[in-house]
């Protein structure tokens, strides 16, 4: 064996081993979601854990849906994440574009402020926000779970760096044709920024779909609770049906998986062309 083929084999071995490390909990989760509750735990110590045998079909899924009112929570999660992502794309890209392209007094200061806000952790704001939400009677609503996350300094910064890299000539051409800043943005710049939009959409969806702390704080009933909190209902109401929990987890992860696999091309491109990589 030559040294280069040996290096090749070594590299594949390393990659496979790492792939196993990242995959095995997921395989275990999906396999467990198709087998009897009692076997989930007892099979957890061997390879049987990775096989959906004995196969019980969608029984766990049906149980999980019934027990945790999955449809309701799913709808809630879609409304919340959808609201955050859609509103966020509009609002954050507009500010990002303004900072990158328009000249006005206070621009530099505004940019510095946005960057400084990136490091403010949401958790440090959660308590006063909770107080304000209670004060305004916003508890147990959708908007209390959406509005605080729409304007996002990190996403504004990502759009800003992306728009900086759009060649100015393209815009100048539109302006000479008599388009104002708004029309230039909508018809020329925004379409070019598709990778940036895709990246921010995926990141926003990812962050919001799994949110846990804030919904725990501002919601009580299941009426407006997102999916992520539902997993708690299984642990608190005995007996623990592990198969159902795994089915619930699989259901919750599915939308993220679909979104990611559909848009991953754009995503990698977007990360590469935006400021994420620094």
């Amino acid at each position, binding site marked *: 064996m030559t040294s280069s083929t040996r290096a090749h084999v070594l590299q594949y071995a390393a990659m496979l081993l790492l792939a196993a490390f990242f995959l095995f909990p997921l395989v275990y989760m999906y396999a467990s979601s198709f087998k009897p509750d009692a076997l*989930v735990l007892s099979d957890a110590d061997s390879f049987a854990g990775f096989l959906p045998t004995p196969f019980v079909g969608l029984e766990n899924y049906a149980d999980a849906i019934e027990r945790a009112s999955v449809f309701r929570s799913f709808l809630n999660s879609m409304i919340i994440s959808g609201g955050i992502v859609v509103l966020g794309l509009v609002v954050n890209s507009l500010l990002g574009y303004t900072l990158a392209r328009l000249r006005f007094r206070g621009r530099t200061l505004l940019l510095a402020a946005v960057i400084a806000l990136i490091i403010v952790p949401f958790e440090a704001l959660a308590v006063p926000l909770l107080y304000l939400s209670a004060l305004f009677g916003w508890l147990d609503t959708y908007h209390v779970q959406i509005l605080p996350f729409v304007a996002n300094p990190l996403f504004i910064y990502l759009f800003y760096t992306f728009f900086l890299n759009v060649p100015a000539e393209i815009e100048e051409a539109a302006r000479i044709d008599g388009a104002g800043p708004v029309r230039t943005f909508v018809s020329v710049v925004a379409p070019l920024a598709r990778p940036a939009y895709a990246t921010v959409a995926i990141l926003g969806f990812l962050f919001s779909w799994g949110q846990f702390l804030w919904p725990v704080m501002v919601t009580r009933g299941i009426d407006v609770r997102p999916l992520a909190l539902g997993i708690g209902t299984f642990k608190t109401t005995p007996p623990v049906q592990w198969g159902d929990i795994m089915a619930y987890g699989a259901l919750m992860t599915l939308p993220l998986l679909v979104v990611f696999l559909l848009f991953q091309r754009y995503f990698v491109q977007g990360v590469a062309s935006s400021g994420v990589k620094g």
Partner: protein
Amino acid sequence: MTTPVGSVAPAPPATGRGWRQGEARTAWLLSAPALLGLAAFVVAPFVLAVVFSFTNQRLISPLPTRFIGIDNYLSTFGDPAFWRGFVNNVIFVGIVVPVQTGLALFLAVLVNSKIRARVAFRTVYFLPVVTVMATAAVTWTLLLNPSGLVNAVMGVLSAGTFSPDWLGSTTYALPAIMLVSIWQGTGFQMIILLAALQDVPEELYEAAELDGAGAWRKFRSVTLPGIRNGLIFVVTVTTILAFRLFDQVWIMPQIPGGPLDATRTMMLHLVETGFGEQAIGRASAVAVIFFVLVLAVTLVQRRFIREEAGG
């Protein structure tokens, strides 16, 4: 795009006084929604947190709010539970940030090489990121139970001498949380570093090769300097996220905080104080301390990294 970019001559500035004034107005108009959001949901609560931290504010209370000076800070600094969370946070950050960044860089280099199936490998490494943390935490809780798969593997590796009750042990609960965090977070860092790697000009590698540089030498002198900015971003963001550790420590141990507070973090402490005890004043003090700490660490880190590179 129908306009051929190359053919456009250096454009005359589309100025004129009216346009310029209009531009400023448009700028504020376009910025307004985001600025309103930031003001209402970031700046205002932050200011409020600072104010609350000097009062005895409670979530719901018949008593009027009183200014109590630095009492909240004193009682927080005098609370062993807070310090426990602080120490755990520091240990967590100190281990997870370097390990996760190193692993992410390793993965990025692996999937950046021109080999078959690299996209498939990249997707697999990224899959945990698209798994909701609450789900991942529950799955890992099963795998980490004393007779779970992790111990089955450990048993083989250590010839049956090592099989701790991970989450029930004061020694291994925090490492178990670290393992789950690294498993879930590395893929994200990998993608960012991968993008940075792909930006390193190929010519630099060729030049290094001509100079007779080996693989390691190329990595040290071409790759690392080339992805400096990406690395800085990854380290900074990972540090901030690591300090915010909450979901895993809330879900995984039998009781939040773990055995003898082995997995208590500052965020857990904040939530228990503000939400559990409804002592908003004291929780705000924790929040302010937390913010100052993260800010300080971020600034020190940036400075350190800058100097390192400049020297």
